[in-house]
C-alpha cells in the first residue's frame, strides 16, 4: 500500500489516473521503472493485466508480473514468435546436447566392453557372460532413459519422442502442455 504523499506507481502515471491506496499495480510497478509497465501494457493491456492479477493469490502476483514482463519483452523483440522463438532455440540446444550425450555414452560403453579386467584374451572380448552384458547395457540404458525422461518432462510432450534436429517455432506450437515447474531464473 502507498504511504501518504508518495508518487503514483508507474501504471497510474502512464494511465494518467489517481493512484489509489489499494492500487493493484503499485506493488509491482514502482515509479522508477516506467518501461516495465509500458511494455506489459503494450502487449497485454492494463485491464487484462489487472484481471489476471485479481484472479491470483497475492503471494503469486510478483512472479506473475515478472513472467508477463518477460513475455512482453520477448514479444516486442520478436513480434512474430515472441517466447516461442526462445523455446525453439532452447529445444534445439537440448536436442544437440542429447545427441552429444548419446555419442559419449556409447563411447564409454565401448571402452568398458573393450577393457573389462576380466577379459584377458582377444577371444574373450567377444565372450562377455550374460551378467556382464546385462550389467553394462542396463547401466547405460538407465542413463539414457533417465536423460530421456527429463527431456520429455522439459518438453512437456506426452508422446515421448524426440523432435527433429532443428525444431521450428511452428513445431513447438504443436507440443501438448503438462504442468511446468516453478521458474528459477530468467534471462536478464
Amino acid at each position, binding site marked *: 500500500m502507498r504511504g501518504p504523499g508518495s508518487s503514483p506507481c508507474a501504471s497510474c502515471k502512464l494511465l494518467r489516473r489517481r493512484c489509489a491506496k489499494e492500487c493493484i499495480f503499485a506493488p509491482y510497478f514502482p515509479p522508477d521503472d516506467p518501461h516495465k509497465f509500458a511494455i506489459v501494457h503494450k502487449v497485454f493491456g492494463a485491464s487484462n493485466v489487472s484481471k489476471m492479477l485479481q484472479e491470483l493469490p497475492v503471494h503469486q502476483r510478483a512472479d*506473475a508480473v515478472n*513472467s508477463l514482463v518477460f513475455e512482453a519483452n520477448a514479444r516486442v523483440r520478436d513480434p512474430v*514468435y515472441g517466447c*516461442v522463438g526462445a523455446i525453439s532455440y532452447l529445444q534445439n540446444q537440448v536436442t544437440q546436447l542429447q545427441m552429444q550425450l548419446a555419442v559419449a555414452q556409447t563411447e564409454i560403453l565401448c571402452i568398458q566392453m573393450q577393457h573389462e579386467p576380466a577379459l584377458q584374451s582377444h577371444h574373450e572380448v567377444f565372450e562377455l557372460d550374460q551378467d556382464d552384458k546385462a550389467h553394462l547395457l542396463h547401466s547405460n540404458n538407465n542413463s539414457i532413459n533417465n536423460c530421456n525422461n*527429463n527431456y520429455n*518432462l522439459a518438453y512437456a510432450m506426452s508422446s515421448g519422442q524426440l523432435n527433429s534436429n532443428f525444431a521450428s517455432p511452428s513445431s513447438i506450437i504443436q507440443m501438448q502442455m503438462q504442468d511446468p515447474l516453478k521458474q528459477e531464473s530468467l534471462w536478464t
Partner: protein
Amino acid sequence: MNPKRCAACKYLRRRCPKDCIFSPYFPPGDPDKFACIHRIYGAGNVSKMLQQLPVQTRAEAVESLSFEAKCRVEDPVYGCVGIISLLQTEIQKTQTLLARTQAEIAVAQAKHSQNPS
C-alpha cells in the same frame, strides 16, 4: 447475422467485413482459439500487433500468440516462461552429465594408454 463470420467477429458479436484482419487466422470452426487469445491479449492489441506485421508472417504470429495464451490460461503465474525455465534446467543437467561422461572417457583412455592390453 452473416453465417460466414470468422470466429473473432462471432465472439465480438459484430459484422465480419471482407477485409477483416482476423478472418484468415480464426476460422469459425475453432472458437476457442480466439477466445483464449482475447482473454489474455484483447482483440484490440492483437489487431494492432497483426497490422504491424507483414502479411506473410501473420499466420505464424497468431499461432505463437495462441500458444502463449494457452500456456498462460493453463498456468496463470508463469505461462510459457515455465517451459523456458524447464528447458534451461534440462540444458544444465544434460551439460553436467555430458561433462561427466567425457571425463570418464578421458580417464578410461588414459588408463588404457598406461596399461595397453
